[in-house]
């Protein structure tokens, strides 16, 4: 279980996270939604220590992730992250991108790392792209390499930070398809997304955030049919979500 207790984050004079408390069950997939600037990405980035909260505690089971470097490393070893801007290592080919952490962190030999990396790339449909550099890949392909890079480390949980926000509609569908298939295969994740239909389909629970606060944590089916808060109702009507599935 991931326990988030009274998390606050200030950036200069803006209060991005305001007394956020929530418990994430690792057996359930969550989607964090809300308008831009609601603090959803910041919350996600705090979970693996890319952002250090101004105050508050994050514990994974009994381990306080900010108490020591070892604790944070332990947390990160079980948690993968996929970014909006892909963040592939620009000087490495697709396969090298996936192999790098396998060799440096998991201490695999080159041969083992290549095997694991190629399986991961095959899984996201990129078996023909091993030796291409990031600048030779489309946005959708880049994001799929980045997903493969994360999966290859066999994390228990993957954090997706707006994985399709930098993609055009066609590539968005391509990447969402991959994520959906992975979730169907049993991958657990916490995703921050603006794709409402996708959130409804993939997530068991919806976390709705507004102005640095969590307003509701509601099972997905209920959230989209009868959100509890007025703010969430407004949000859904503004995003013109009609409850249809693709």
């Amino acid at each position, binding site marked *: 279980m991931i326990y988030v207790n009274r998390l606050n984050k200030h950036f200069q004079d803006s209060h991005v996270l305001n007394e956020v408390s929530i418990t994430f069950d690792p057996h359930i997939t969550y989607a964090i939604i809300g308008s831009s600037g609601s603090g959803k990405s910041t919350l996600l980035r705090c979970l693996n220590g890319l952002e250090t909260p101004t105050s508050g505690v994050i514990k994974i089971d009994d381990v306080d992730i900010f108490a020591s470097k070892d604790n944070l490393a332990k947390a990160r070893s079980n948690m993968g992250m996929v970014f909006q801007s892909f963040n592939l*290592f620009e*000087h490495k080919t697709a396969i090298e991108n996936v192999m790098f952490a396998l060799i440096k962190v998991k201490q695999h030999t080159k041969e083992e790392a290549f095997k694991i990396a190629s399986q991961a790339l095959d899984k996201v449909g990129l078996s023909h792209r091993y030796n291409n550099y990031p600048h030779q890949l489309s946005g959708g392909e880049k994001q799929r390499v980045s997903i493969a890079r994360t999966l290859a480390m066999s994390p228990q949980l993957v954090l997706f930070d707006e994985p399709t926000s930098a993609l055009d509609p066609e590539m968005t569908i391509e990447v969402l398809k991959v994520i959906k298939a992975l979730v169907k295969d049993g991958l657990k994740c916490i995703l921050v997304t603006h794709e409402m239909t996708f959130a409804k389909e993939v997530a068991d629970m919806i976390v709705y955030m507004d102005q640095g606060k969590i307003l509701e944590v509601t099972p997905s089916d209920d959230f989209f049919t009868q959100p509890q808060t007025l703010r969430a109702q407004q949000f859904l009507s503004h995003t013109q979500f009609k409850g249809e599935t693709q």
Partner: protein
Amino acid sequence: MNIDFTRIIPRIPYLLEGVQVTLMIALVAALIGSVLGFTIALITSKKGPLGKLLFLFVDFFRGTPLYFQLFFYHYGLPQVIPGFLPTAYHSAFVIFSINSAAYLSEIFRAGIQSIDKGQIEAAKALNISTWDIVVGIIIPIGAKNVLPAIINEFITLIKETSVAAVISVNEIMRRHTIVAGTTFRAFESLIIVGLIYYTITKTLSILGKIVERKLRYDLR
């Protein structure tokens, strides 16, 4: 016009021996300066009191002439530090190293800042150690971005070693002074010296271009 190379030609080997000295000072300064400069760059690109102190140090060495720095170390310090009597080579090695560290640290700092933070975050999220991030990501990407500036700095360094003549280091310019003084053929000697310097720097810049082409993964 009175140009006569006959008296200079026998002195050419003597002038050429200065190339060794010039290159040795430049090489030592480039090596020590790179290591020192990179360390300074890593520290100053993070916020902290040590970074501010080092920045002041860098600023001082960039803000005063090399000529002054050599004189200060070689003739100034011995007056106030009892028993400190550096040889000309000692002074040249120390000052050229520190001076190029100061310039290189600024280049390296720009290189580090040119790296997209997202890639470093991705590496952190993958639990890659700081050491492996520096060696495996920051250095290779940064090197590509700053290589032209570094080559440029090395060329400047080679040219500036000529200043070491003022503390009697036996490099090319110092040898020229001696040759011109004994033969009274300054013009001819200078032509040779100019050709020597130009050959060295041109070779280096061609080598630099070759290395640069190898590092440009974005052109593959």
